[in-house]
């Protein structure tokens, strides 16, 4: 299948809600159907081709070009195929995603992969907050899948996540892993405050020193073998996790005792 390409021709003046842009939908649609599919420019009901040049049809490979920072909900609930964006995207990228692959060369907004149940999202630039998180009031964040952010990320990364993996290359802001119930967050460049606050279970790995909550207790240094498994899994994405005893060790901190929770934060100490 050759990809469907969408190239931004008209910059939206207010946010454009485009949850119609998914491989699941487009694989069954002709070029005309794709062009005419409904997007919401603020409150206005518009056609996709009011904003995008569209080529291709009947494909679950989608390529998008342009500065899409005002375009929201791309790849929402998608379960197959691939969405590749050459540029930046707005909020809710891959929210409720069930499978398939999303790649963004630029930056992304808040709530990427929110409440997703499977799939893979890779944002090369910076991302906003609430990555893989639960929406307000909901108790269930991402249930599975992988989210990789090359740059920095915002508040509440992995809030209430249940399973799955989030990797952030740059520094993340406060409340990373807030109330998480499972899964793994890997922080390549550390985080600001309150990492792991109120976590119940799950693992946060940081390659850089972190300020810890007073409700985390130190429980020694080690080189656990599960890190090797993660390292293997992440290596194809260009991420390398150290674990060899000659290179250093992980210091383990358990919490959050205010819950009381059984989560762990592992911080790498180079030898």
């Amino acid at each position, binding site marked *: 299948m050759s990809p469907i390409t969408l190239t931004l021709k008209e910059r939206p003046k207010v946010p454009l809600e485009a949850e119609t842009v998914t491989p699941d939908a487009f694989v069954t649609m002709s070029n005309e159907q794709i062009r005419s599919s409904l997007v919401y420019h603020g409150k206005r009901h518009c056609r996709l081709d009011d904003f995008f040049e569209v080529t291709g049809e009947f494909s679950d490979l989608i390529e998008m070009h342009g500065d899409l920072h005002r375009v929201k909900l791309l790849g929402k609930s998608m379960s197959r195929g691939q969405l590749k964006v050459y540029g930046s995207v707005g909020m809710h990228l891959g929210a409720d995603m069930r499978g398939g692959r999303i790649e963004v060369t630029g930056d992304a907004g808040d709530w990427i992969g929110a409440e997703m149940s499977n799939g893979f999202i890779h944002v090369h630039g910076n991302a906003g907050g609430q990555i893989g998180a639960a*929406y*307000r*009031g*909901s*108790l269930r964040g991402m249930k599975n899948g992988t989210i990789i952010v090359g740059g920095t990320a915002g508040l509440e990364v992995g809030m209430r996540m249940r399973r799955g993996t989030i990797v952030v290359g740059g520094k993340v802001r406060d409340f990373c892993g807030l109330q998480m119930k499972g899964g793994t967050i890997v922080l390549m460049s550390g985080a600001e405050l309150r990492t792991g606050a109120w976590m119940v279970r799950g693992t946060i790995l940081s390659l850089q020193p972190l300020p810890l909550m007073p409700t985390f207790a130190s429980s020694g240094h080690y080189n656990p073998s599960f890190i090797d498994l993660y390292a293997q899994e992440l290596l194809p994405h260009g991420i390398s996790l150290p674990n060899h005893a000659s290179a250093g060790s992980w210091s383990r901190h358990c919490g959050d005792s205010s819950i009381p929770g059984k989560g762990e934060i592992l911080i790498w100490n180079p030898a």
Partner: protein
Amino acid sequence: MIRITGGKIFDPANGINGQVRDLCIDGGKFVSSVIGGRTIDAAGMIIFPGGVDVHTHVAGGSINFARAMTPEDHRRTTAFIRTQSRRSGLGGMAPTTFATGYLYAGMGWTTVNEAAVPVLSARHTHEEMRDIPILDKTSCVLMANNEIFLDLLEAGEFERAKDVIAWHVWAAKAYGVKAVNPGGVAAWKWGKDAKQLTDPIEGYNSITPGTIIGRLAQIIDELGLPHPMHLHCNNLGAPGNVWTTLETMKLLEGRRAHIAHLQYHAYGGDDWDTMRSASAEVAEYFNTHTNMTTDAGAVLFGDTVTITADGPWQHLLYKLTGRKWGNLDVENETGCGIVPYTYRPSNLVNSIQWAVGLELLLLINDPWRIFLSTDHPNGACFWRYPEIIQLLMSYDFRKDCMTKLSPIARERITLPDIDREYTLYEIATITSAGPARALGLTQKGSLGIGADADVVIYEEEKDIAKMFSHPRYVLKGGEVVIEDGDIRATPEGREFIVKPSFDPEIESFLKPKFEDVYTMSFENYPVEMERLEHADIRECINGQAPSPPRTAEKEPDRADEGVEF
């Protein structure tokens, strides 16, 4: 002017069971004939009087708190889209006011009783009710834990206590009086409860829950309020509470009373492990004591949010489930708790609760005295009533549902042994004629000449739940509000209120007491009449006791050939 022709009429208030008759409507009421106007061809269709909900929570501080606590539910529910003429809304566990009107009317209910209004937030409740379109409304004001009232009972000042109740009913612009866990809520404010009728109440010496219940029922009868004391008994939801419930009923002999959500008060056993259904004991007593009416408070499996003025029960639920919990205490009057909750067939307690609600509806043999309710949103959301109707009308469907229950649960209930199936006439009684009668709303629940023209027209079909979920037409006050599943009009509803008489001197007694314990000015406390846009006032005559509940006569033979449900 509207004429509805050829429909099969189910009008228990007038003893009509499936006869084909024309209905004529003019000026919002049924009349004997009309000339001109629209004709609705209802040939072969089933016609009920508009539904009346005797016990629901749709407006006021607590349901509005529940709305705030459940944004995740608002995101996964039915959304009513804004049109040029109609407001948007969200359905779900705690629907918005506009959606509340659309959803009730959408299944043919046209009158609701908001069952728990603290006087302090009565002004708020009326504002919300004004934003519930289509439906006519009544409300019950909470009095049984009011501290000024309790102090008077403690001092033995009955006449003054009566004036205090009457003054508060009028101040709240209410229609009736609700008593919640009498004495227990007052104790809850100290983190305590009063579970038995003879339990002392924290902070008082002589009065017990029993004193409050007896006195309040007497006061409401003597004031001549059209709806009797609306009682949420003590010890709600606890295993073995059947004894409290039976004691309460015995105490009420010779008085009118409406016992709310009976399901939550009909449990046997000693604790959560030995809990069993006690609906048979309750029904047996209830069947032979015609001074009372009740509503089922039925439970359906699934998600809901529980909200009640019974703070102690809510805190227990929170401890049992560990879910998020809200609690709201109102000074000197009441308190309420809010917990999102999921009833599951795999849970023994939930299974028993589900069965008990249905058992009571099936074992209480007089449909004029037990009414359909889920204590919305506590047992289930009101928009699931059609599922309960299906359970009542089909023994086979009940048997199917019971296969989901564990063998232990099936041993603790009597539902498998009950093969009664409701007739359409009985459904029309428990959903409309009966509750209208219990509320004393003579113009409701009837298709007779002079009654309010609130009508539901169903296309008869085998799938009972579907038939009752999707009426073909709903008319409110003679206006077509629902047609073919669309909302055609959203007129504002009326509010029925009562004006009991009281000695105006009571204000000079109340004012200093009030200012002692409350934080707002006495003069600002009563709800101003101007705030009610469509009020319908009923004057009550002191000492003139309204008639006791209507009891069933033999059901007339059904006149039409019905489909086999």
